[in-house]
């Protein structure tokens, strides 16, 4: 077990000293995944509402599409984004490959289906009886819609939190489109892989600490959101 103690002690030293090698990578991770989840929320929440609320034709097909995208292997998403951004690809002119922006794009693709799916099911599960009660109280269409959004807010928050959790600990897509270039496109997950390869277990363990902390926080946040309860009782 000695190998663990050594790595953990080294990690603690690096984190508490604010090491110049460790800290920027943490910042990059948070920036990339934070931007990605914000964009995923902007795109996914309205789409999720529409999908959850309305009963248009083809809605079932769209839900299957969203569910499948949620289960899509991240490396495959990485591959598709890479091909789009490569010099000969349709978006090659943007010259974004191997930049943090490319990682954001890949993570948006990963997080958006999650946000759409969870939001849609939260909205759809708002009881039909409740909508009837709202209408019977004289709510206009707009007022009814707003009340349902309010009622589904737990699910929406959960979708964004879950989306962030999924992308910050993901490694396949970001390593493909970011390339894991030291000091430029390294995030915590790619850096762990790279430093284990180099035998720098202390540094790898430092990032692992942060990732574990984030995983714990997300678990706590999801539990809290689930216990928030409905605005309506009984």
């Amino acid at each position: 077990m000695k190998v663990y103690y050594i790595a953990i002690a080294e990690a603690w030293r690096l984190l508490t000293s604010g090491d110049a090698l460790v800290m920027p990578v943490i910042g990059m991770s948070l920036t990339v995944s934070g931007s990605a989840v914000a964009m995923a929320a902007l795109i996914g929440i309205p789409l999720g509402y529409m999908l959850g609320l309305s009963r248009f034709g083809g809605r079932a097909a769209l839900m299957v599409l969203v569910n499948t995208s949620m289960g899509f292997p991240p490396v495959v998403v990485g591959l598709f984004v890479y091909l789009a951004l490569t010099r000969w690809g349709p978006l090659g002119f943007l010259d974004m490959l191997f930049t943090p922006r490319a990682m954001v794009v890949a993570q948006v693709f990963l997080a958006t289906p999650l946000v759409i799916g969870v939001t849609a099911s939260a909205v759809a599960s708002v009881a039909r009886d409740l909508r009837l009660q709202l209408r019977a109280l004289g709510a206009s269409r707009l007022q009814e819609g707003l009340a349902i959004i309010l009622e589904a807010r737990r699910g929406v928050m959960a979708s964004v939190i879950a989306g962030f959790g999924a992308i910050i600990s993901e490694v396949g897509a970001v390593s493909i489109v970011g390339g894991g270039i030291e000091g430029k496109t390294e995030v915590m997950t790619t850096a762990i892989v790279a430093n284990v390869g180099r035998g720098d277990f202390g540094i790898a363990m430092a990032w692992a600490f942060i990732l574990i902390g984030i995983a714990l926080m997300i678990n706590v946040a999801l539990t809290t959101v689930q216990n928030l309860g409905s605005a309506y009782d009984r």
Partner: protein
Amino acid sequence: MTAEASDMLAPPTAPAVRGEGIKVVYRRRTAVDVPSIEVAAGKTYALLGASGAGKSTLLRVLGLLERPAEGRVFIDGVEASGKDLATRRTIAAVFQKPYLLRATVGANVGYGLKLRRVPKREREQRLSDALARVGLAGWEGRSALTLSGGEAQRVALARALVLRPRILLLDEPLSYMDPLLKRSLTLEFAEILKSERVTALYVTHDRDEAAVVADRIGIMRDGRLVSEGDPETVLTLPTDEWVASFLDAEAPAEGLVATSGEGVMTLACGDAMIIAVGDLPLGSRVLVGVPSEDVLLFEHGVQIPRTSARNQLDGVVSEVAPAGAAMRITVAVGDLRLASTVSRSSAADLRLAPGSLVTLLFKATAVRVRPRDTIAPIV
């Protein structure tokens, strides 16, 4: 009182709610098929029926909350639809579940007023009035989470009443309650509906609840209205075997008007002749029933004192069954079947058992009559 008197003198006005040719279809099954229904202004109309009979669907259609496959709804004589927010806002509803916000009682009751952008000062005044009317004066600041089931449903009623609706829909508002609470709330709701003089459509599957609240009752079965009229006639004179069984009442007998004059008729029901009040034409085919509470039983052959009861018939007990704390005795008089409710001790005293000979006594005024082949009774 003066309002009541002037109301009685006023000429008949358009019914507050009228449905015409209402048809609702769910997955190819006809859920509601009601050619015509009217709810008189200021009155309470109870829709009574088993679950799945289409009562709640009809309520939603008449309350503009659901569009029917066919048919038209008139509010105060004017055709209306759910798209017309102003008309919809003259209608309020109380459902089975109160669906209260996790907020104060005041916020809940004021919610509909807020949707209507009623100014805060007026809102608070109307809110405290409404709470007083349901017996919860001063409860504004309480959390809706701490309420009991009965209190929550009274808040839901206040939330509807505060909107000063022309029409109030109540969809099984008391069906989740204990029998005890249900009975007291039924009386309370009936009193509030009466004093508010609001037009109410009240859906329930409970005969006794309907009897307490309603000025008029319609019985639904499989999406159709199968009986309609004032509570006493509807509840005591079923239109057919199914309605009789649903109401736990004796199935009505068929009869013919044998003599008729001076407001008194003789009805031939099989071998039995029954005297009733009314003046239907000679030879009319009628349905005849006598409420079991009005039928007295005597030992056969006993000297019966002189009485104003015009009908005295001999019969044979065919069934003795418990009915609540009392007993329900079914007696066959030829083909005619009449029931009498007696206490358990009376049943024991008279040694009533299937096969016993008994004499039945009831007044002519107790006999309910309606012409056959109409669902609406003569009132």
